[in-house]
């Protein structure tokens, strides 16, 4: 079973040299810590920055320089700043190669819900609806099961949707799964020490798995 950093580490292996990448709040943010050596990626932050750098050193925080998670950050040589309209312009026009974001639920046909729990939680969709509707390549970083052990990979989302039929890959504490064009989760890799059976029983949506599923390589 992976912790949050483990999920981020596994997702980082999906990065390819030359990618422009948008990282959502939460686990996706951690992906930046595990970018493989020799892989050059540029991080976009939808509040208006391309080329997001690391957190500043203590005492060097600049309140005018934050990321979409409102965290103080820095720029890198070659960074550029722009307004919110251009930021989502480059997202909609698919100049961003990969989007990584969190989810409360994902369905077997690639729907995602991550912005609202009716009557309980109303944070808003922020940029998530734009990102999932526009990105050509989206990876979801999420928990496979909730604290009660219930699956969050469902036949159909129960929460208000963020986007429909848009997710292609999910990485959880238990597994890496592709979402098939015809519907259904396909088990690609399992987390170290996690059995295929456990993943099957933790996945409410349709799951396709070979008899042998390789364990993730996190190194």
């Amino acid at each position, binding site marked *: 079973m992976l912790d949050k950093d483990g999920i981020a580490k596994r997702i980082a292996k999906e990065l390819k040299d030359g990618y422009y990448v948008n990282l959502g709040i939460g686990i996706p943010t951690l992906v930046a810590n595990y970018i493989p050596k020799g892989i050059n990626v540029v991080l976009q932050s939808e509040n*208006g*920055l391309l080329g997001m750098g690391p957190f500043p050193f*203590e005492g060097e*925080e600049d*309140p005018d320089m934050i990321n*979409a998670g409102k965290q103080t950050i820095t720029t890198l040589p070659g960074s550029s700043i722009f*307004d919110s309209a251009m930021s989502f312009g480059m997202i909609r026009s698919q100049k961003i190669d990969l989007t990584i974001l969190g989810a409360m639920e994902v369905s077997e046909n690639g729907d995602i819900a991550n912005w609202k729990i009716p009557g309980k939680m*109303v944070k808003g969709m922020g940029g998530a609806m734009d990102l999932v509707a526009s990105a050509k390549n989206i990876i979801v970083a999420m928990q496979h099961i909730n604290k009660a052990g219930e699956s969050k990979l469902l036949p159909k989302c129960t929460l208000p*949707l963020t*986007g429909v039929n848009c997710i292609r890959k999910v990485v959880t504490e238990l597994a890496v799964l592709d979402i098939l064009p015809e519907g259904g989760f396909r088990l690609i890799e399992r987390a170290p020490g996690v059995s295929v059976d456990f993943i099957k029983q933790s996945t409410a949506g349709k799951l396709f798995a070979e008899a042998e599923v390789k364990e993730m390589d996190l190194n």
Partner: protein
Amino acid sequence: MINKKVSGAEEAIRDITDGKTIMLGGFGLCGIPENCIAALVKKGVKELTCISNNAGVDNFGIGLLLKTRQVKKMISSYVGENAEFERQLLSGELEVELIPQGTLATRCMAAGYGMPAIFTPAGVGTEVAEGKEIRNFNGKDYLMEYAFEADFALVKAWKGDTAGNLIFRSTSRNFNPVMAMAGKITIAEVEELVEPGELDPDHIHTPGVYVHRIFQGSAYEKRIEQRTVRPRS
């Protein structure tokens, strides 16, 4: 050049009266018009409709206007940082319209660019699409969304000149330029107000034609929401 300078926030917001629709620039607490918000609180104007990406935090930004119940309706994309907001919303005291962040930005830009509507894929198939026209281009569905105008746009820039030209600093730019274009009356507060000619024409983010009033603000707090640092190695 045309001189847009006013004495300060109070004069700038003098005709913002009860029931007006105002846009407020900023992302989180970054790049918000602190002086204008303070003047609105002091003036006590009520029943405002506020268009802003976020709703501030409990004790700062638009949160100050929420605490004093001056806001009738919020139009935002993300409001997760404000407990008082959530309380007013869940209790029904506050009307809220949540729209995707890119849609919000682009609808403002559309107003400034004289485009009555735009198409975006954001929200297709979700409750955001309810009642909206859907149109297919090249095999993909898009929502038609209308341009956003506001009675007043309140924006914060780093530098400005008395002709209304604005330059923003770092990610405090965010929604400010697009909202500056969408105000019937746009009020800019700046950290440093200079004479025409002191800003390089090539570096101006918002041309003065979009700005109606400008003043030099003071006492900027620039609160940080998430202070994240790394150790010196």
